[in-house]
């Protein structure tokens, strides 16, 4: 019998972005929680680039914030550059991206976790998940200690049987310089989970003292910086620029001449890598006619000289890495502080999960983050938050939190994972969302804050502020709809100055604002009001896009009717006349929770859905 230390409500395995959110959510909701990490000093560590946000990812950070998660606040605390991307392309695809000081980010996360009541942090390697009658009951660590738990959340990132490749050298590690987790993967396999293998990579880190920045382009952030979190009023850190340089033919020749020493091209790496984050050797091979590739030099923090060379991720040997780096303008004398590497790791095919992120096989066992085949800090954190909330809801016997595809990118993410699965590291893109216009950066609070409040993760002040902000928006829109502008020489002169046609009849401010050439600044000059810049922007989006948003809402509404036709857990697909074997197998594997989800499973035909509707109706009537 192993030594038994303590019983917890929730045990979280892993202290990365998923683990932190999971542990914070469950402990904040009153669960006695323990977070196990292989290395306490690595809590909240950003293994890859020192940046948070970007397209769809920035949206997820906002959603996490609106639901009461921590990532946005950590990113604001650590942010040393903020940029709102796509400002010329319409509000649905505006996205915030930040550079983060790695150490400040970790510092904020660790402090928040340590100060959190109900949460214990332990350094240790969990080797085994213990179950009883298909229900999780605890874990055993490498020291042979047993900890009881009503729910276990596994967030192991790249650590499951992690294997690092640098050239033809390879070594077992969870991340450069850290242990891998070997036993846990086998434990999951012996519980019956289907396990696959993925690959990802990271570029070299360089010493700023040895970089000649004068040969690079400088990219500054927005001034003033816009924070992620609704709670953050101001960014305090000094802001730093990034620098851009480019590879050239010499770089590409070096790479081509050394492909035989690449573990990727030599076949030593079997895991599937992400297409959107290819190594430099991949880019050179696949796009051979491209003359140059961008390299972003991103600062790692305020107190360090380390720079992250974004764009030249590679698994080529160290000597080739040096030659690649030194062939690039500005980097001729650069010293590599940490070499680039590729890492392979185990993941669990996510179709084995419910939308709650609980596994279908083992009750009380939840998986979140890279173990589910995703990539990215934000995707991990979003899942961690949902797993933490749902583990809690399960223990409390309450309704789980399942976000719909028209409600949140987190909803799209999880629905894609559990319905379609993935074969490569899954990253979120806005193109994956069918209701992109509804899932905006600016309306994350409208979409989710009430839910965060109901769950118990949004405090009074934040919620009051939210209500106040939205009331101001509603008031201003009401004002615009009821305030009329009369045609006059002055007004028409102003309108013509703006490049829009003059008015000959009375028109409301709202109608005027709908004109493409007119913005809120203009409205404010002809009819001032005392709203904040933030509210003014929200009003502008709502008024200008009202028609489009309304149309997407209607489509979403129609689709949600299919989502509301639920398929009970115990529903038997066998013996339904007319279903092909292929369809039958898919339905049995995915166990869709409603007709909408069933219709999204690859290979399920509309005819099969009709048949399913009939069978479902019979099931309901016969009880």
């Amino acid at each position, binding site marked *: 019998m192993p030594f038994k230390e303590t019983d917890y409500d929730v045990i979280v395995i892993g202290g990365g972005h998923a683990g932190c959110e999971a542990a914070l959510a469950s402990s904040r909701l009153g669960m006695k929680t323990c977070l196990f990490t292989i290395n306490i000093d690595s809590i909240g560590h950003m293994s890859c680039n020192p940046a948070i946000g*970007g*397209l*769809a990812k920035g949206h997820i950070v906002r959603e996490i914030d609106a639901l009461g998660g921590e990532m946005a606040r950590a990113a604001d605390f650590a942010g040393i550059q903020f940029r709102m*991307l*796509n400002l*010329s*392309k*319409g*509000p*649905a*695809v505006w996205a915030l991206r930040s550079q983060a000081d790695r150490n400040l980010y970790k510092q904020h996360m660790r402090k928040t976790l340590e100060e959190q009541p109900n949460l214990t942090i332990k350094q240790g390697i969990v080797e085994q998940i213990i179950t009883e009658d298909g229900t999780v009951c605890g874990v055993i660590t490498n020291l042979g200690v047993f900890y009881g738990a009503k729910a276990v959340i596994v967030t192991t990132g790249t650590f499951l049987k992690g294997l690092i490749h640098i050239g033809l050298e390879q070594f077992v590690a969870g991340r450069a310089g850290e242990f891998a987790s070997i036993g846990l993967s086998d434990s999951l396999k012996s519980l019956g989970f289907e396990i696959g293998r993925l690959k990802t990579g990271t570029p070299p880190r360089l010493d700023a003292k040895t970089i000649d920045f004068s040969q690079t382009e400088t990219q500054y952030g927005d001034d003033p910086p816009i924070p992620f979190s609704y709670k953050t009023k101001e960014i305090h850190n000094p802001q730093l620029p990034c620098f851009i340089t480019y590879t050239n033919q010499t770089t590409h020749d070096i790479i081509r001449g050394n492909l035989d020493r690449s573990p990727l091209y030599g076949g030593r790496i079997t895991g599937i890598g992400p*297409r*959107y*984050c*290819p190594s430099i050797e*991949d*880019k050179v091979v*696949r*796009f051979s006619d*491209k003359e140059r*590739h*961008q390299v*972003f030099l991103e600062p790692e923090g305020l107190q360090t000289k380390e720079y992250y060379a*974004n*764009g030249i*991720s590679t698994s080529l040997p160290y000597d080739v890495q040096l030659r690649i780096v030194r062939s690039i303008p500005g980097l001729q004398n650069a010293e590599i502080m940490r070499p680039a590497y590729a890492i392979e790791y185990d993941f669990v095919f996510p179709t084995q999960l419910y939308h709650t992120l609980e596994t279908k096989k083992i009750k009380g066992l939840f998986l979140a983050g890279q173990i589910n085949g995703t990539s990215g800090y934000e995707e991990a954190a979003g899942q961690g938050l949902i797993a933490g909330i749902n583990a809690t809801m399960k223990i409390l016997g309450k309704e789980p939190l399942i976000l719909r595809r028209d409600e949140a990118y987190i909803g799209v993410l999880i629905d894609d994972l559990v319905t*379609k699965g993935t074969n490569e590291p899954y990253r979120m*893109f*806005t*193109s*994956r969302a069918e209701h*992109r*216009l509804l899932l905006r950066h600016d309306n994350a609070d409208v979409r989710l804050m009430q839910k965060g409040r109901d769950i118990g993760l949004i405090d009074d002040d934040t919620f009051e502020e939210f209500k106040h902000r939205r009331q101001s928006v509603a008031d201003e829109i009401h004002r615009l709809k009821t305030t009329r502008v009369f045609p006059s020489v002055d007004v028409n002169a102003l309108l013509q100055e703006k490049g829009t046609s003059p008015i000959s009849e009375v028109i409301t401010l709202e109608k005027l604002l709908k004109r*493409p050439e007119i913005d809120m600044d203009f409205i404010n000059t002809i009819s001032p009001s005392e709203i904040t810049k933030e509210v003014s922007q929200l009003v502008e989006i709502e008024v200008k*896009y009202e028609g*489009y948003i309304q*149309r*997407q809402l209607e489509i979403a509404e*129609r*689709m949600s*009717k*299919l989502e509301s036709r639920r398929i009970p857990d115990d529903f038997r697909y066998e013996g339904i*006349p*007319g279903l092909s074997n292929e369809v039958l197998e898919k339905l049995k594997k995915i166990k869709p929770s409603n007709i*909408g989800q069933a*219709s999204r499973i*690859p290979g399920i*035909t*509309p*005819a099969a*859905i*009709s*048949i399913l*509707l*009939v069978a479902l*109706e*019979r099931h309901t009537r016969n009880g």
Partner: protein
Amino acid sequence: MKNLNDTIAAISTPIGVGGIGIIRISGKDAIPIAETLFKPKRNIKLSDVDSHTIHYGFIRDPKTNEIFDEVLLTVMWAPKTYTKEDIVEINCHGGYLTLSKILNLLLKNGIRLAEPGEFTLRAFLNGRIDLTRAEAVMDLITAKSEAAMRLAMRHLQGQLNDILSDLENKLLDIVSLYEAHVDFPEEDLDGNDLKNVLDTIEDLIQNLNRLSEGFHYSRLIKEGVGVCIIGAPNVGKSSLLNKLLLKDRAIVTPIPGTTRDVIEDSLEINGLPVRIIDTAGIRDTDDIIEKEGIKRTRMAVELADIVIVVCDISKGISQEDLLMIEQTRGKKTIIAINKVDLTGLDLARQKTNFLSNHEVCYISALNGFGISGLKDVIFKIAVGNMVKTDAIISNERHKHLIDMTSKALHNVVQEIRQDSPIDIILIPLREGLLYLGEITGRVISDEAILDRIFSKFCIGK
């Protein structure tokens, strides 16, 4: 995915058969929408009439005021109807064109084309029919969708698929281009790429519209090719018909004018359905019955896709025969030189060499000589006709989807011209891709778009 709460319509009588056709509409908007399109003879309002009552009037396009057909319209209020929803049935004159025009009018006015079996599905879900019956219908749907799949497979090998794939491919390129600009603003993408998009889209719209216009050729497949047999009295038209059909369909007598009415039957040539029409001989006559027959013959010629003029070579090519050939000007015509058993082939050829501008077949309707050659010529002309168009859309739903795609792309053009932001332009753009995908059966998922992005653009910061 279909929505079970909107209003649907379909032609509910078999195509090409019978004198009247029925279009059925079911759903909550059935009566209000019918009301906007129906011009009753008497002063009534459809929304006020009793359930299960029939009303006489016209179907009229409210936008153009064009009258489509004279109809009888049945109103049935829920719940005592087949689907337990409000139902309107429009009885109109059965011509395929009329039915299809009225159906299109409905689709333009907010009604959705019903999926196969959807009326029954609704009937079941609304508790109108029992499970056994519903399941039987479901089986039928599966069978139908399998048949549709086979048909689709056949199309897969054909030109239609090539054209659609090409359109889809171009559209996917455009979508991927825009999506790449949205999702990867920090990549080194060429902004000029977006400038040529408008031309490509307008080109796509033209192609789609051409496809849509080619829809009427599908009639050839659905209703069969109409072949009309004409000729002077007693040249052997009815014998030819019987030989083609391999049965005694027409009464054959040596008395001229035996066939007083138009006789219609169908056969298959190499799998192509052919409706064959035997007519009364055309000639000047005082016989009233025969006059009526001749009138109908003229109409049959008018409506036919191919006309066969039969001549009796044993009597030589007569003035009457030449008049007959003259009457078919502008039609695809085959001249069938009959009774070569009496003259011999060589003499028949000699006597008709002045007809070399025409498609001529030498036959004997008596002993069957040349009949299979004649069938080949019919097939060649009919199919040759189709091949001249780009491709054939044989399915009302496909035409509808192609029109919807075209409409979506029109909206794209409008948004681009208005300088709308990319996220707005992408809405109709992806809508268009979705419609096209429904025809080809390929689901263009976001994965396919991402595939295209990653294969075309070097992404990866």
